[in-house]
């Protein structure tokens, strides 16, 4: 592999010029998100530069403890992002969501490294952090939909939940209906993406590998494997996430605690 061509300072400058397109559009149409756009772009640049330097060292040392620790930091950030973006309270959800993410993502990434990539060193930095990042990033999005939708739909359709309880359902029996719906909502985007993959979109992983010098036929094998890994980790983390949080989220009489939400409806 000869790797992708490095981008010069001039290239990055031209990249900044391209940023004028969204900036001017946002300003011209008075969309009111100019500040958001600028801060987000700056944050992205600063974070990526820092991570770039950091990862250089992580890849160089390739120390199992450091790799593990960094993966845990990534999982931690993902869990907090899920809780925040689904409108739930950190205090009640931090532990159960973190636990569900750790179990789901460790299982999938270690399975990938051991059985699919067949690495000798299954905690290898390149695989653990790159594959882990892709799996985590994608299951994060699905979890925001899945876990968020689960609790939001319970609040919105509380009458329906009560109706099921009055029909003699246990808490778990009544929740099954809501869990099923949230699962479908969470998995649908991934399923739709898979159906158009290769035709509409060349996924980031393939692009990266092709630029990095892999032949397309190798890249697609990884892409197929990674999509299945994403599905597996999504299903695992949503099920465990719901399972671990329902214990905290209801009063003894089966009523949903209103204090689990950060905002009122």
């Amino acid at each position, binding site marked *: 592999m000869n790797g992708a061509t490095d981008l010069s300072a001039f290239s990055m400058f031209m990249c900044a010029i391209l940023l004028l397109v969204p900036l001017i559009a946002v300003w011209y149409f008075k969309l009111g998100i100019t500040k958001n756009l600028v801060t987000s772009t700056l944050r992205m640049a600063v974070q990526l530069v820092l991570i770039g330097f950091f990862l250089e060292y992580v890849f160089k040392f390739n120390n199992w403890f450091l790799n593990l620790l960094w993966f845990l930091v990534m999982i931690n950030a993902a869990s907090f992002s899920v809780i925040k973006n689904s409108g739930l309270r950190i205090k009640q959800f931090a532990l159960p969501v973190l636990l569900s993410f750790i179990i789901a993502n460790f299982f999938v990434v270690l399975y990938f490294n051991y059985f699919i990539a067949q690495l000798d060193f299954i905690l290898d930095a390149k695989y653990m952090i790159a594959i882990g990042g892709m799996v985590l990033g994608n299951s994060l999005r699905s979890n925001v939909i899945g876990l968020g939708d689960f609790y939001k739909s319970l609040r919105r359709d509380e009458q329906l939940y009560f109706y099921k309880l009055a*029909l003699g*359902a246990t808490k778990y029996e009544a929740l099954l209906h809501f869990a099923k719906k949230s699962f479908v909502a969470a998995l649908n985007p991934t399923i739709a993406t898979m159906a158009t993959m290769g035709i509409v979109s060349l996924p980031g992983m393939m692009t990266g590998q092709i630029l990095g010098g892999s032949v397309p036929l190798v890249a697609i094998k990884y892409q197929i494997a990674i999509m299945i890994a994403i599905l597996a980790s999504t299903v695992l983390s949503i099920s465990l996430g719901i399972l671990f949080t329902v214990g905290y989220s209801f009063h003894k009489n089966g009523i949903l605690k209103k204090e689990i939400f950060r905002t009122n409806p």
Partner: protein
Amino acid sequence: MFDIQNISKRFSESFVLQNFSFQISRGDKVNITGRSGIGKTTLFRLLLGFEKPDSGTISFEGSVLTDASVWELRRRVAYVSQDLNIGTGKVQALFDETMSFRANLKYKEGAAIEIPQLFDYFELQDSLLQKDIETLSGGEKQRVAIINALLLKRDIFFLDEISSALDKPLRIKVLDYFLLNPDFTVLSVSHDNYLPSGVEIKALKLN
């Protein structure tokens, strides 16, 4: 059977129920009346443990309801809500789901036989079973909810305006079904001033 003692419930600043007491005995037919917003639905919700009274107690068969014992009560009472959000999917799937709950499993086989009979009594076509709940009319949904409750083989009924979307002959048929059965204990909200002969209906006016 039910003993409600001095319960008060308020939402934000206004009392919905204040120092309210009454008793229901086995076989009673009680009709709750009162202007809208007075707390008729709240009363059902309190009795089913979906709300807690700010003060006062509710007893069921001699023991005060607690967070733990309310589950038993929910398995004894059949509740037909005024809210017609009874789910999504096919009507048959709704019945199947209800009968799949552990508490109802023993009635599953009987339900298969009873559904056609109840459909016949409440004047619904069997083909309705394969329709999506969302496509039903209000009156059809009400009858499906009533049948869903009857399949549970319970003898205490909380009926919250269950016939409001039905025409008069059908309304009477629905009310007769519950009021004429001496074994049924019925607590209902209904705007019909219908009194079948030979049945004593206790009026409970909230104000």
